[in-house]
């Protein structure tokens, strides 16, 4: 005790806590408690049958768990996002990317896979 810097202080009647920069999850991913390896898959294109089926079948075959899924029409595009956990994945990120690219090519869609930290950094302060 006593060695840890106390970053809480009182501002009038409000208690303010300043989160040290090193504690931001995006800055220091190894501090995260859970062992999940979360990535976002974004699928952009024209809506058609089988998008969810094809992508999720591919993920299932590679032991990738879907944590969350959402879809929307934006600026005339069909947009689907999947938050996936790669921690149990049976192949490399490279192979997953290539597999998704192949599905994208087949179905005329743009599919992108990116680690969740990039979204946290860009869209959360």
């Amino acid at each position: 005790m006593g060695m840890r810097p106390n970053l809480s202080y009182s501002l009038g009647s409000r208690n303010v806590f300043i989160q040290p920069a090193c504690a931001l999850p995006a800055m220091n991913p190894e501090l995260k408690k859970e062992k999940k390896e979360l990535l976002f898959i974004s699928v952009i294109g024209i809506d058609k049958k089988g998008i969810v089926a094809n992508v999720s079948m591919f993920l299932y075959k590679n032991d990738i768990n879907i944590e969350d899924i959402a879809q929307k029409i934006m600026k005339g595009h069909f947009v689907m996002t999947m938050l996936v956990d790669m921690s149990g994945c049976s192949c490399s990120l490279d192979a997953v990317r290539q597999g998704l690219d192949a599905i994208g090519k087949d179905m005329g869609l743009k599919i992108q896979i990116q680690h969740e930290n990039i979204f946290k950094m860009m869209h959360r302060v």
Partner: protein
Amino acid sequence: MSITVEEVFETATMVMNQNLDIRTTTLGINLKDCVDSSFSTFRKNVYVKIVRNAKTLVREAEKLEKKYGIPIVNKRISVTPISLVMESHCSRQKFLQIAVTLDKAAHDVGVDFIGGFGAMVQKGMTRSDRVLIESLPDVLSRTNRVCSFLNAGSNTVGLNLDAVNLLGPILIETARKSRNAIGCAKFVVFVNAPEDSPFMAGAFHGVGEPDLSLNIGISGPGVVRSVVEENKDCDLTALSEVVKRTVFKITRAGELIGRELARNIDAPFGIVDISLAPTTAQGDSVGRIIEAFGIERVGAHGSTLAVALLMDAVKKGGAMASGNVGGLSGTFIPVSEDIAMIEAVKLGALSLDKLEALTAVCSVGLDMIAVPGDTPPETICAIIADELAIGVINNKTTGVRILPAPGKKVGDVLSFGGLLGEAPVMAVNPYSAKLFLGRGGRLPAPVTSMRN
């Protein structure tokens, strides 16, 4: 706090449709500890130190490209200004030999450029500085990856005109010796040169830097243009806000990737240079942002205001996003590397004079401009001196990367292909400043430097 579909869509679109990328990641390496009285030992030390520290740079950067889905276009190295570590070996032959060593080290670790073959001569030149300058035509024409810089002035000491006066003949000789004048594209003369810039050709590892430093240069003109196009009717304050918000996001992406890469290659993280840097790729143009603001062509009256707004908004967005903003951070307006700038010159919308005015409010300066092959050397020196004076007096970095195109006249085009694009040859003023420049000496430091 989950990420929404809109946010994922925005980021994915930035990469897929708007050319968002990390333009460069540059590992700064200190070479001061390589100095040895034996030249061959010194060369060996330099090679070993560069290869030892940079051997994982390209591989680790490629891993992060895949993890975050954002391309890291260039991987580069910058080193301690070479004239400094060559003080006891200064002959033209040895300068060429050490340049060959740098070229080989860069090749062997797989980076496309290595910067730092240069000198700090803002107040005067040592013998080593002078010999380095004399060696430039051979070095720049005989090596592929070595980039060179000169810092010829600063707002605290003024402008070293004697050094600038050496450059006209040197650049003409460099252009003659290298194919398509390409050697000149690898040399930039600065005032107030930042010691941590990751961008070539002017990157070097300053003397105040640690042993290693990983710097990141993030770009994204296409992303900014896209949001400007979506906000056609807003006033200048709102427009500035829109640009700021976007730049904030792309700077954060750069900071994340820079920090992680630094950790993975075991080097301290240096800075994020948030500069909008164009390429000739479709949609990757700074000129197009100016046009999206509502200027018919870059160079039209109103362009200086537009660049000023853009530049300021970029800096503010970047400053909010990262505590480590450094380098040049602003907006580059190179002619040959930006399709809208090339078009504007060809159409007569953008002259050298207007470009000089634009550089008073943007970062860097007269960048990648081709002038006729028969331009007198003193006129090249005068173009450089004018641009550098803007930096000295206005407390900012300015630089010149000028290509005297052998055998070419106004209206001809100097084509490089790749990142360097093509430079339409621009007209220079036919009247001479020979007598004025011939006075030599040093422009005294401006009165604004007296702050102590």
